[in-house]
């Protein structure tokens, strides 16, 4: 914890909300205050398009009286507003229903060593605007050097610094600082009525770990031009290879299905199935909030519960739902340190990598589809059904043959998890919810 004057005033405000809440008659109070600074620049065709810079503060709290809960949030931090919100919340709580699971967690004696998590890069606040703008311009310039690229959605460089403090009437008091930065570019290739588009983004907590403009530009170009002149295919059931970005959304959907809120609400097909085999032996999934430098790491969750490492699936067997205190009490399980605002969020939630390289996975496939992008909604956690618009690369004889568009993929998450034939070695934690390349034995790809 960096004891800056800024952090001190945030801690002071959070503690004040807790004591005011108690004075107004609440049994329990928990307050979070955050202070964020953002910088973002979008450039397009060699010029600045948008430049945004701002600092803002935000508070949120809950009060519990007679096991009845009321919440409030505000970006107006004036004392008069804060006092009114607290009074209103205590009055509102009285109108609620008694809920025996409501309440703050018991304070834990475990303490996470915050500096060892490497959440904050001291270089980020020191970066001047000019070099950040130059990085975005440079990335787009390199991408546009490729003559196959016909238009640009622009390049962006973004930094965020956030201080989060949390105080509870259970005695919890903590704070941590985080930084994020990202460099991205979006491109189009092809002529007006036959265009394709894609982008690449590099995200990291540490400025020095960002991919350089050359790499970001090259990946965006490659991802865009490989889709040029797509073909339609006929409707068929074939092996489908998910690129890591695609595994990310599949794993994200699985996260929604193991969230204990969905479980007690019975809005997930995994409700009541703890200990059952859901996927095959290739499916081992962890949630880990303590991985140094990773995007989803944090010392404690939004209730002040220390984050840890949870095995969610072990070789296909569902071992654990991810809980906050409330949903945990509903299911008679301990919290896993996944509280996020009023719901449940992932820490670093990832599918364990295997041994195969992405090239080996493609080479193993006689005929099939490499899924490169999906668009649309079409995920139903109640049933596990999936149906989405898809883009990909057709595989013929173990090699990429041609791009494919205007297809949809459809299946069921449980069936998919049972058909994961190969798992790649290319897990890179580019997103807090992630996985490597995987190969699914058979999925319906609808085309002509």
């Amino acid at each position, binding site marked *: 914890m960096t004891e800056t004057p800024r952090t001190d005033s945030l801690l002071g405000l959070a503690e004040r909300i807790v004591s005011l809440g108690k004075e107004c008659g609440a049994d329990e109070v928990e307050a979070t205050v955050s202070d964020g600074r953002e910088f973002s620049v979008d450039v*397009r065709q060699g010029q600045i398009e948008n*430049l945004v810079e701002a600092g803002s503060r935000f508070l949120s709290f809950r009060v519990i009286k007679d096991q009845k809960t009321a919440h409030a949030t*505000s970006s*107006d931090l004036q004392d008069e507003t804060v006092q009114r919100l607290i009074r*209103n919340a205590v009055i509102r709580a009285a109108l609620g229903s008694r809920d025996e699971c409501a309440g703050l967690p018991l304070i834990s004696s475990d303490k996470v060593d915050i500096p060892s998590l490497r959440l904050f890069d001291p270089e980020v606040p020191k970066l001047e605007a000019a070099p950040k703008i130059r990085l975005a311009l440079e990335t787009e310039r390199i991408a546009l050097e490729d003559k196959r690229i016909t238009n640009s959605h622009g390049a962006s460089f973004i930094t965020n610094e956030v201080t989060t403090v949390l105080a509870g009437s259970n005695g919890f008091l903590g704070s941590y600082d985080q930084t994020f930065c990202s460099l991205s570019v979006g491109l189009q290739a092809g002529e*007006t009525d036959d265009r*394709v588009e894609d982008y690449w983004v590099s995200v990291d907590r540490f400025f020095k770990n960002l991919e350089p403009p050359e790499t970001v530009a090259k990946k965006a170009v490659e991802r865009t031009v490989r889709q040029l002149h797509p073909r339609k295919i006929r409707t068929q059931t074939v092996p489908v290879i998910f690129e890591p970005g695609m595994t990310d959304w599949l794993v994200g959907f699985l996260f929604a299905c193991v969230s204990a809120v969905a479980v007690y609400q019975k809005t997930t097909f995994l409700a009541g199935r703890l200990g059952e085999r859901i996927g095959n032996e290739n499916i081992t999934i962890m949630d880990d909030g303590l991985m140094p430098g990773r995007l989803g790491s944090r010392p404690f969750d939004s209730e002040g519960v220390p984050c840890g490492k949870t095995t969610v699936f072990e070789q296909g067997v569902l071992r654990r739902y991810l809980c906050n205190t409330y949903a945990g009490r509903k299911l008679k399980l301990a919290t896993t340190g996944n509280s996020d605002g009023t719901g449940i969020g992932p820490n670093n939630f990832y599918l364990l990598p295997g041994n195969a390289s992405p090239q080996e996975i493609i080479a193993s496939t006689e005929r099939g589809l490499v899924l490169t992008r999906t668009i649309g909604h079409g995920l139903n956690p109640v049933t596990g059904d999936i149906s989405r618009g898809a*883009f990909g690369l057709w595989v013929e004889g173990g090699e990429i043959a041609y791009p494919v568009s205007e297809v949809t993929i*459809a299946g069921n998450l449980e069936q998919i998890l049972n058909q994961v034939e190969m798992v790649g070695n290319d897990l890179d934690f580019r997103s807090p919810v992630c996985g490597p390349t995987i190969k699914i034995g058979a999925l319906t790809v609808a*085309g002509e």
Partner: protein
Amino acid sequence: MIAFEDHFQMTDTMRKKVLELALSRGGDFAEIYAEYRVYSFINMEEDILKETAESISLGLGVRVILGEKTGYGYTNDLSFDSIGKAALTAASIADSKKMASLPAFQRTLLSEDRYPLTQPAHQASLQEKIELVRRAYLSCQMSDPKIKKVKVLFQDHVQYISVVNSEGWAAEDARPQVKLVCTAVAEKGRRKEFGFSGGGGRVGLEYFGQALSPERIGREAAEEALQLLEAIQAPAGEMPVVLAPGHAGVLVHEAVGHLLEADFNRKKTSIFWDKLGKQVGSPLLTIYDDPTRPSFRGSYNIDDEGTPPSKTLLIDRGVVHSFLQDRLSARLMGRPLTGHARRQDYTCIPIPRMSNTYVDKGQDDPEDILRSVAKGIYAEKFEGGQVEDSGKFTFSISAGYLIEEGRLTAPIKQATLVGTNIDILQKIERVGSDLSFGLQTGTCGKEGQEVPVTDGCPTIKISRMTVGGQS
């Protein structure tokens, strides 16, 4: 009409000072957007009132434009010092010494109020709102023993915005917004399905006594879940698709509306950029975006740049007629303002957005349209969709029916429609006379900004479309 409340207390002299700071490095245009919003929220599930919340969003953003560049700074600390800092941040995109002279502010008088209501939700007691929630909840729960889980959410907010700019324009709006939604889970054996319904708009609580009762919202959510329990998988492949009136407007929103937003056309990333005045679709197709429809969720008295909006003809009998404009694009493209600049909140730069988008009614009898299909699908309810600038889009059907020999037969569930917009627009074969609008609950996302919208359409037949189900 809701009276405007000023939570900023900035005098014209202060506003002028801020705009002068914003233009101190030679920008073409500067603007102050001040916003105060109070939300309330009620959640009922597991037969209890689980949670209530109150939220306040207060802040102010300063924007400077120079040529095609935009600078933006915002703050929720209302000291003059912080506001001045935001203005200087916005100014940093400019780099000349040129000083603009500011005209006196002209207050815009609103000609019409699009929020005709009698019982503003933000002034109603929490008990009244809780009662609406309970009524929807019980109606859903009692509809059938197979309904195993009900969740009802009520949300309302009032948003006060004021905009002043360096051209001397000053405008204010006080916008209400109400939403009551119900989700149901029905179970039969091991099978479980979701149902959803809801309503609201820029209305007061009188809406739930007149336009749509909480009981109906609850019942409709239950009915959708029960229908899906009996649903089969949609077939996969290319086939005729009939869009049901109302909800299917989301197809138009996704496949056409987004690509007619001016920013994508100014940047030539939309496939429509060179098609103004050109025939792109069936002559049966006419599309409007209309922010002036009274009480609609997507409506407003002024847009988020202070411009009074107008009903905008987008596609006229298959011909691209105009784009949805904000100030920046309108100026750079030399086109008139349409009043479609919107922003999620004070932290965001305004961009061209849709409001209430719909296909105008046609001539055909909806029954005749169905009778013309030997085998296809009837797309009734949608979860949403997505489009790329290249015109490729997808949207997800959550409920519908098979069409066999001109009649609706088995209910179907979860399927995805994909296509390329111009291709689909040309394949519109029939347009019904039965225009209606979807639920007043929708939200549209663009560049990370969410704004309330509605969509509408009559019954429409598309001759062939790729449907993704499980074969």
